[in-house]
Structure formats: structure tokens, C-alpha cells
């Protein structure tokens, strides 16, 4: 049978659709949240003269770094179908351990490595409980959140531990131009995480396992091992974030990082991930982090009273996501 007119029309339409979908799939979610971000920036630029300045830009970057690094790990956990509340305990645990270690005379670099190990151990415990005992990630990491946070408080006796030697705050003090080392660290880690998710076997496994754990298992992937590794990475990054907070503050305190869990999860979800796993990515996560950080910076600059800041933050968050959805709906995609 010869191709009918209709068939040819379908073929053309499909070619057209292909192009559109390429853009759509690769970037739509990103475009959505990106557009939201641009809108937020434009709004604050008009609302506060100090907003769109060089120094405030640096400021926003330094402000978001801690949550940014936590969010990188959280993105891995969420993409692979889990999530991690314990980061809110691991960040202060990292900060306190780092302060104690350097005050005990441990060289900075060694101290950082030891703190990373502390994080890694917490992550391994999370991963093993989730995979071997089969307790769901919410309860598991809620439990380890409580434990790690309690550890941070008892290690520090609830008191802030100032660095005896301010040189230990090297991550925060050293700058390249006006950019602190730790901002550069965030950028570097983001690139690594991005490349890993895009181009590595491990990254691909994360998407597969998050998307369909059973199918991945049947395809011969070591799903439990990968899951444990993800939690290890997530908690290690959180403990690194703890080192950075401590370096910024030149002190370790158990009170830091309380918002890390909710903020990092919110950033990852804002960036297009789903709590059911299998989707999401680093660029979206970073924009999500920037959205949250910029809203809070902009409102402080506008001198919005504290309570209204909360109200406005919630409202902007909802508007932002609704706007992202709207674009989705307009382009005719359905989830």
C-alpha cells in the first residue's frame, strides 16, 4: 500500500514533534524553573537598589553554598528513589567534629578527611538500614537525624566551639578574586556530580534504580550496593557542608544546619525531581537552591519584616512552582 497523504502528514508532524520534544525533555523543566528564577531576579532588582550589585551577587553565592552542597547529595538520594533527612544532623556533626579536630591540632586537610569519614559512616548506616532491614528512608533518616544531632550537641556540650587557630577556616578565608574557596568547591562538586549523573555508569544506575528498582535488580544491577553508596555520598557531602559552615563561622556549633534537610529537599524538587525517584538533575537543583537563597536575600534587603518574609517565601515558592507547571500545561505536555 502506498503512503497516503495522511500518513505523510503524520510523518512530517512527527519530525516536527521530535525537535520540539528534544527541547522539551532536555530543558523544559529547567526552562520553567529558570524562567521563575529570572522573574525573581528582575523583581528584586526593581525592589531593592542593592540587589543587583557585584557585592550582593557574591553574597548570594556565599549564602547558598552550604545548602547547595547538601542539595547535591540530596539530589543523588532523591533521584535514586530515597531521601535523606539526616543531613540536618550531619551538617552540625560535621561542623562540631571539625572544630574539635582542628582544636586538637589535627592539620586542616586531615581533619576534613576525617569529617568526611564521619559523614560516610552515617551514610553507610542509613543505607544499610534502608536496604538490609528494609525500613523506609523517612523513618531511617529521621532516626539518624535525631542521633547525629544529639551527637553534635553532646560532643560540643551544647556550646559553640571557636577555632583556636583562625587559619583553620581556610575554606572560607581564602579567596580567588572575591570568590571564596568554598564557592569554587561548590561549583567544582556540581560539575563532578553533573558529569557523574550524565556520563557515568554509576549515575545511570541511580536513574534506573530510582525509576524502577525491581527492573534494575532484574537487569543484574547491584541495587543495594548502589543505594548504600548514594547514602554515603549524600552524608559525606553534608558533613563537608558542616566543615564549610564551621569555616565560615570560625567555630563549630551544634545549632547549624537545622534547615538543611527541608531546604535541600525543596531545592531538589523545585529543580524538577520527583520524590518517587528516577528524574531530576544537578542544574535544576542548583537553580532551586538559588531560588530559595535569592528569595531570602532579596527580602532581607527589602527590609521585609521577619514574619512577612516567611509568608512571602511560601507564596513565592508556590507561585514559582505553579508557574513552572503552567508552562508544562501550555506546551501540552502531561505528566
Amino acid at each position: 500500500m502506498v503512503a497516503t497523504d495522511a500518513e505523510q502528514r503524520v510523518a512530517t508532524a512527527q519530525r516536527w514533534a521530535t525537535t520540539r520534544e528534544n527541547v522539551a525533555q532536555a530543558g523544559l523543566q529547567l526552562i520553567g524553573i529558570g524562567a521563575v528564577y529570572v522573574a525573581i531576579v528582575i523583581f528584586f532588582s526593581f525592589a531593592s537598589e542593592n540587589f543587583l550589585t557585584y557585592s550582593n551577587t557574591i553574597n548570594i553565592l556565599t549564602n547558598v553554598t552550604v545548602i547547595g552542597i547538601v542539595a547535591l547529595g540530596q539530589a543523588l538520594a532523591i533521584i535514586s528513589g530515597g531521601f535523606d533527612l539526616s543531613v540536618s544532623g550531619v551538617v552540625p556533626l560535621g561542623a562540631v567534629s571539625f572544630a574539635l579536630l582542628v582544636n586538637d591540632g589535627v592539620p586542616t586537610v586531615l581533619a576534613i578527611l576525617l569529617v568526611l569519614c564521619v559523614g560516610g559512616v552515617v551514610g553507610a548506616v542509613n543505607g544499610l538500614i534502608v536496604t538490609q532491614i528494609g525500613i523506609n528512608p523517612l523513618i531511617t533518616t529521621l532516626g539518624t537525624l535525631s542521633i547525629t544531632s544529639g551527637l553534635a550537641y553532646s560532643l560540643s556540650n551544647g556550646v559553640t566551639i571557636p577555632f583556636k587557630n583562625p587559619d583553620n577556616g581556610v575554606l572560607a578565608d581564602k579567596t580567588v578574586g572575591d570568590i571564596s574557596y568554598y564557592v569554587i568547591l561548590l561549583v567544582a562538586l556540581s560539575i563532578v556530580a553533573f558529569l557523574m549523573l550524565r556520563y557515568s555508569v554509576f549515575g545511570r544506575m541511580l536513574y534506573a534504580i530510582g525509576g524502577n528498582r525491581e527492573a534494575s535488580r532484574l537487569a543484574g544491577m547491584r541495587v543495594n550496593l548502589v543505594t548504600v553508596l548514594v547514602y554515603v555520598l549524600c552524608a559525606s557531602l553534608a558533613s563537608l557542608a558542616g566543615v564549610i559552615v564551621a569555616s565560615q563561622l570560625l567555630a563549630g556549633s551544634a545549632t547549624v544546619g537545622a534547615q538543611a534537610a527541608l531546604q535541600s529537599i525543596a531545592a531538589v524538587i523545585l529543580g524538577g525531581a520527583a520524590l518517587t525517584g528516577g528524574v531530576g538533575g544537578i542544574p535544576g537543583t542548583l537553580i532551586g537552591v538559588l531560588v530559595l537563597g535569592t528569595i531570602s536575600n532579596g527580602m532581607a534587603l527589602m527590609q521585609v519584616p521577619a514574619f512577612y518574609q516567611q509568608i512571602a517565601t511560601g507564596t513565592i515558592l508556590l507561585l514559582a512552582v505553579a508557574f513552572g507547571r503552567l508552562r508544562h500545561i501550555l506546551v501540552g505536555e502531561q505528566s
Partner: protein
Amino acid sequence: MSSDAPLLATTGIGKRYGQHVVLRDVGFQLHRGESVAVIGENGAGKSTFAKIITGVIRPDSGEMWLEGRPVSFRSPRDALRHGIAFIPQELAYVPYLTVGENIMLGQWPSWHGLTSHALTLRRAREASERIGIDLDVERLMVSLKLAERQIVEIVKALSRDARMIVLDEPTASLSEQESRTLFAILERLTGEGVGVIYISHRMDEVYRFSDRVDVFRNGELVASVPPSQTTPAELIAHMLGQEKEEFVHGTRTSTEQSVIELRDWKRAGIPNLAGVSLAVGQGEIVGVYGVRGSGAELVAEGLGGLHPEISGTLVVEGRSGAIFPTPVEARRANIAYVPPERKRDGLVLMLPIQANMSMLILRQLARIGVLRSRLERDQAADLARRFDVRFRRLGQAVGQLSGGNQQKVLLASRMAAQPRLLVLQEPTRGVDVGARVEIHKFLTEIADQGRAVLLVTSDLEEAVIVSDRLIIMRDGAIVGELRGPSKTQANAIALAAGSAA
């Protein structure tokens, strides 16, 4: 059949997703007491049409009339209230409710907003008895096998007192016996004046049951004829736009050493294995057939690494070892296992076609842990060509493909690993006739390349024509082996049912 206004009539139904036109100008009619079979290639738009006339999705254009009155359904609820029941292709059940509650889903007996579980179960039991199907209504849906879940879905739809029932591939996972029961019920219902729309890929069913066959191709209704006035070949030509090739029965005999050998596999429990030994040689397709509970599926699953509790030995290329405790060992022994439920166990629906195709070969595609994207894409494009996967882009999510094409992606992902043994379970479930032949041809090609194939299927026709050697199982044991001229459907049934020597 009634002479006044048709039960359901549509004109100009159109639907597109973005730029992708899925249905175009569909005019359709169904009369009281009439049964219409709808056939078409995977992706032809059958399910989409079914969803439109049952209120699941809304059309972009066109009108519908129910008994002469124009209707426009805003939701499935709307359609249900007009007496339209629907069994979707993707089973829609609630896993942690009982069978009874699923049958009565949304129609629980209610007294001022209150309901009773016992009464619900009683009603469900009555409904299934009325329909003539014996069900344990107290079990949890989640503990049921796929076919049992399918039956529950059928009972649910049939118990809705509908004047029109739409069934989307209801027999895809049913046994011969169960299908026959279903058709008997449907015939009774049409006798009572109910209209039935029935989507299927099984040509024999079309002839057995329907008053009329409607053929979809590329979103259009291209033919509408009574089965008595057409031949299967003609119907297939309508479907595919070309003639179907005939498939030749497998007759290979392997002289080579066996690629894999199962020795004395045993397992207590339901179903059990009572000492199964079999071997698959290079270049042959060995079929395993048995009714449910015969243990045939355990053989496939055991080779996939899903049953560490089976005792026995596995000899791979002459080396003897234990049964694979996990799928990881199966993959490492280069044995590829194709699970029967592709969406649940086989594919990652939100990931692109190419990512699904490389699931088993990530390491081969990588250098020091880094995937070589170009290589992955080339490999996927090559596989897609070889398996004739219909897609728009390799980056498209597999979930957007039609079921038949999804099945091909799953097969391709297993073949990508170039396995020494390919173990398949129900490889053509829900696949159109064209794709079914293609998949069968493909299995033959694989065997011809010298690989071993073990095919576990409940599709008797498939088992008989594709396999070179057909092993029949009953009660956890092998009860016979058919080859050559004795390899017939009748012999296979007789052995499987235990009514032959």
C-alpha cells in the same frame, strides 16, 4: 440488533498529543447486543479511542451520541453513570484492598455514607457467582498473580450493570480456559442487549466471538466488516498495510554441547519443583509449557536469579555450579532473562529508549566508569533498527511507546548483552500480530546465530510453533517432550493436563 438509534455513535473523533496525531476523524457505531472487535497494530490508537468513549480522556474534536442523545463525558464517573464500563489495558486495581473491595470499587454498598466490609464481600461474591467465576474475595489484590488480577478486573467491569462494556486486551494474560469463560459471559451479556467493544491482538478470538471487526491504523478507522465476510489475511493487510509473512515452525535439532543444563531442581512450596533436569543446546529454541502451577515459570525465574531457595545444580558450558542467588550472577554468567511484566519488572518507563537498551551492558559501554554516549547511541540505534522499534527519538521516554514497542525495547536490552542463553517469559504478551511475528522471527535468528533460547510461555500456539523442542511440565515435573511431527497443540494440552500417557 436494534434498528433504532445506535447504542453508541461517534463522528469525527480526533486526538493529538502535542503535535502527535493519535486519532483522526473516527466515526464508530455500536448497537445494542452487538459485539465489536477492535484490532490494529501497537500504537494504532485503539486504547486511546477506548479511553475517549469511556470518559478517561477527552477528545480534541468530534461528537458522541448515546442512544441518539449527544453526550460529552467529563470523567469516567460520567461515563459510568451512563452505564459504560471499562477494563483498561493497564490494570487499574488497588493493591492493598481485598479482591471483593476491588470488584465493588467505588460502588460499595452504602447506607447513609456507611458501608460494611462483610456486605461488600458478600456482594462481590454474588457478583462473581452470577458471572460464573469462582474467586476468593477475601484475598488482598497484591497477592494475586497477574492473570488473577485480570480476572478480578473483568468481574469488576461485568458487575457494573452496564449497557456497554469496553475491554482493552482483556485476554492478554489469560489462559485458554479463562478466555473461553470470558467469551461465554460476554455472549450471555450481548444476548441481554449489552454492547461490547473488545480490543485484541488475537485473531482467533476475533473470529470466535465478534459480530463485526473494526481495524485501526495510524489513528484512523480503516475497515469495519463482519468476520464472516473477510479472512485473517485481509484483516492483517488492513492492519499493517501489507501482507503478513507466515511463520515456519521451528525444527532445529542441536548437536552441539549444551550451553546450559539444569540438574535436579527442587523446591517445596506452591508451585513446587520436583527434580527438574533439562538442557538447552547451542542454536536451539527450547520451549517450556505448562498450566498455571506447573512450575514452568519457576524454571525461567530461577535462571534469572530470582529463586535462591531452589536447590539443584546449574551447569554452564560444562562448568557445574549452584543456582544463581541473585540476578547479578545471572548477568555475570551472561544469561539474559526477560521478565513477563515489562512495565513492572522490565523497563524504566521514564528513562529514554537508549538508556533502557543499555541497562545490561553499561560496563561494556563504559571506559573507566564513563559511559561513551556516542557508542551508546549507535548501539541503541542499531538495536532499534534490528528490532524495528517504532519511535520518534532515541531520547524519548520508553513509557511513551506503545506496548508492543516497549516489548521490543525490552528484548533489545537483553540481546544487547549478546547472551549465551536468552530466557524469555511471555515475550509477546500484548503485542500485535505483526510485532509478534517479528519477535518470533527474531528468536529464530538468534538461534540460527548459535545462541541458546529458553522460551517459557502460556501461549500454546507460540510454544508450539516457535520451539524446536517443547518440554511440558505438570506438578513441578517434566512430563514429556515434543518434537518433530508430534509437536502439536493437542499433544501439548493433553500432556499438560495429565490426560495422556
